[in-house]
């Protein structure tokens, strides 16, 4: 059962990155869209994520619940030492989620829209930034449970070059995922072109940020190179990610939005697999080489069993419905119907 629980945990994190990430990315793209085109971008985006955006963010809750029920020590340690970035992440989530809904359900369309839009785009940028910072801090080994002063314990645990670089890398990936996703949703050639253009730029930015991640890992003493190239699985995953990137560039001009989506998702998945595999089962790396592992920090067997069954039963109920949701709103563009 432990493996079932771990699988769901990994799946929750992965899907949140892919689906929630594309969602954040849509806001990031809006932030960098010329005023001339912004209305059309917004419409495309709303039609693309309106019906599913709520479901996309459930993956985060699933991952958190699995952590606190199944691996309470990991959850507690993260909550204590990463309190500040978690708080900022939360503020981003609340600002973004409410602004998204407010701007579509406000009965009157007036200047308030400007406020909602601003909140929406800036929080779409900041939320994945802090998500990346948290992800970076979890593996960076900067969390110091012995620290005796505020800065070392609660600030430098997450504020360092490596995690900040991971943060920007995450932002770029989210934007990239969204651009690729939106290519398939655009209805006019001119919009499609714009999204292709955006995808290219964001991909370049992601590559640059990725390079910065490597440099900062060197600076901060994070053995990233060793993780990624030191074992066969991670190495293969990285090679696969690179190949899919090349293929994606070749295919970008030619449409085939489904293939593009698959390749982009595959690429991000491979990056996560490479990192995750490298130090599995250790989840939270601490200063001084200590770590909290999924095997050692697990809850008692009775809890893990119950949790595993709950997850399995839950997914039997959820997955078919979720697929049907994606499928139904994929078939025909939303504005053919009354909303």
């Amino acid at each position, binding site marked *: 059962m432990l493996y079932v629980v771990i699988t769901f945990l990994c799946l929750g994190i992965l899907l949140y990155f892919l689906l929630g990430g594309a969602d954040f990315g849509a806001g990031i793209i809006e932030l960098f869209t010329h005023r001339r085109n912004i209305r059309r971008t917004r419409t495309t985006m709303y039609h693309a994520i*309106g*019906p*599913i955006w*709520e*479901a996309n*963010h*459930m993956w*985060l*809750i*699933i991952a*958190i*619940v*699995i952590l*606190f*029920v*199944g691996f*309470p*020590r990991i*959850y*507690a*340690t*993260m*909550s*204590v030492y990463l*309190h500040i970035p*978690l*708080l900022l*992440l*939360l503020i981003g*989530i*609340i600002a973004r*989620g*409410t602004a998204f*809904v*407010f701007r579509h*359900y*406000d*009965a*009157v369309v007036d200047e308030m829209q400007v406020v909602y839009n601003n909140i929406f785009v800036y929080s779409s940028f900041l939320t994945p930034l802090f998500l990346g910072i948290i992800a970076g801090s979890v593996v960076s080994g900067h969390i110091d449970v012995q620290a005796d002063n*505020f800065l070392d*314990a*609660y600030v430098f645990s997450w504020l360092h070059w490596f995690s900040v670089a991971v943060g920007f890398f995450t932002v770029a990936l989210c934007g990239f995922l969204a651009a690729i996703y939106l290519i398939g949703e655009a209805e006019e050639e001119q919009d499609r072109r714009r999204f292709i253009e955006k995808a290219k730029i964001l991909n370049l930015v992601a590559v640059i940020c990725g390079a910065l991640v490597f440099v900062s890992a060197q600076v901060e003493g994070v053995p990233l190179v060793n993780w990624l190239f030191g074992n066969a699985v991670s190495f293969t995953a990285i090679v696969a990610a690179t190949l899919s990137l090349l293929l994606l560039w070749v295919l970008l001009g030619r449409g085939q939005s489904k293939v593009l989506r698959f390749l982009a998702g595959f690429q991000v998945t491979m990056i996560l697999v490479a990192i995750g595999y490298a130090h599995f089962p250790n989840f939270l790396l601490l200063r001084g080489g200590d770590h909290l592992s999924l095997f050692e920090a697990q*809850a*008692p067997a009775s*809890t893990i069993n*119950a*949790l595993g069954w*709950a*997850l399995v039963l*839950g997914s039997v109920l*959820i997955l078919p*419905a*979720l697929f049907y*949701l994606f499928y*139904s*709103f994929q078939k025909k563009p*939303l504005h053919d*119907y*009354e*909303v």
Partner: protein
Amino acid sequence: MDDLFAARSQMALSLGFHIIYACIGMVMPFFMAVSHYRYLTSHQDVYKRLTKAWSKGVAIFFATGAVSGTMLSFELGLLWPKFMEHAGPIFGMPFSLEGTAFFIEAIALGFFLYGWGRFNPWFHWFTGVVVGLSGLASGILVVSANAWMNSPAGFDYVNGQYLNIDPIKAMFNDAWFSQALHMTLAAFAATGFAVAGLHALMILRKKNVVFHAKAFKIAAIFGAVAAILQPISGDISAKDVAQRQPAKLAAMEAHFHTEKAAPLVLGGLPDEDKKEVNYAIKIPGMLSFLAHGNFEQEVTGLDQIPEENHPPVLVTHIAFQIMVGLGMFLMLVSFLYLLALWKKKNWLYSTWLLRLFVMAIPLGFIAIEAGWTVTEVGRQPWILNGIMRTKDAVTPMPGIAYSFYLFAAIYVSLSLVVAYLLYRQIKAVPTLYDVTPAPEPAHATH
């Protein structure tokens, strides 16, 4: 502000905020389903417009409920890491099932909001019902987690160790049923009265009367039935508290001295130093009866409980009085309304009855906040009744006060925006949802 107090205030603020959205999010879908059903069976267009108008409101509340809930699942760890480290595996079962319920709710809501004219009408209707049912299930599950904090079960506590964990037993602890029942009724009563009151206000202002009258009736019937059952369920809760948490009961009732044939204290200001209640009305024997079903039985007072385990009496007592007082008022209004429906049709659109409903708009929610204050403050100094103290659970990180101020600012501004949006929704009814008002029926104007 010290860190413990700041953490407690932040938790209370976040939950107090979330609960309002959660209640509306779990009850409104049922109102919509009724109205939608009416539309599908009678094809009166007004019901379709009403369903749509309500569903816009629900989307706003649902999103706010979802983000504030997401915050809570982090805050439990951010504020109470030591508690979660031990409690997580024990009371996690309802939370993991709740995850499923939320997910289904989010999916069903996607179908419902965007599904007009797209699916078989009855499938579409059904997805709306699923939104309501799964919301209800989440509410019940999370309350069972809270009930476990009042009535710990499903583990053995030996020398500071939590052994033999049984998450299922923990979920079905002694308090879960009485609390879940009371909470569910509270959600229906509070939301029913708030919604009915808003529509009553519009009827009083003679705006789109047919539209608002239909809305009013649906909400008022739900609210009235729940509000009549509420005191009965409250009595079950009180008997339950008397059994498992005598200190909480004593604080609720400001019952300082153990006695036989204990009187019920109505109102009054407890003086915790002198251990007496000033300005109160006392009904002899009534407390013994309410707590134990017998006018003579002894009721444990605070004098039998060690000083360091006393909950704050003043806050608990006043909050309890507020809840019960409002509960009685809502019950009264409900009886009047049901009587009007049944026998006195001419009362139905009379100004005084509608005014009573307008007055009641916030009352159910005030009662809910008061009720939770009773439950939570009355459990102090324990976070996990009798096992872990709140002060031992709080995060070691200093400066929680700043995070509390930040959250307070966010919640206050969010509440203002939501109120503003709702105001605009209601104002937009004539232009968006009810463009050509049907001729007013004679009885609707008095």
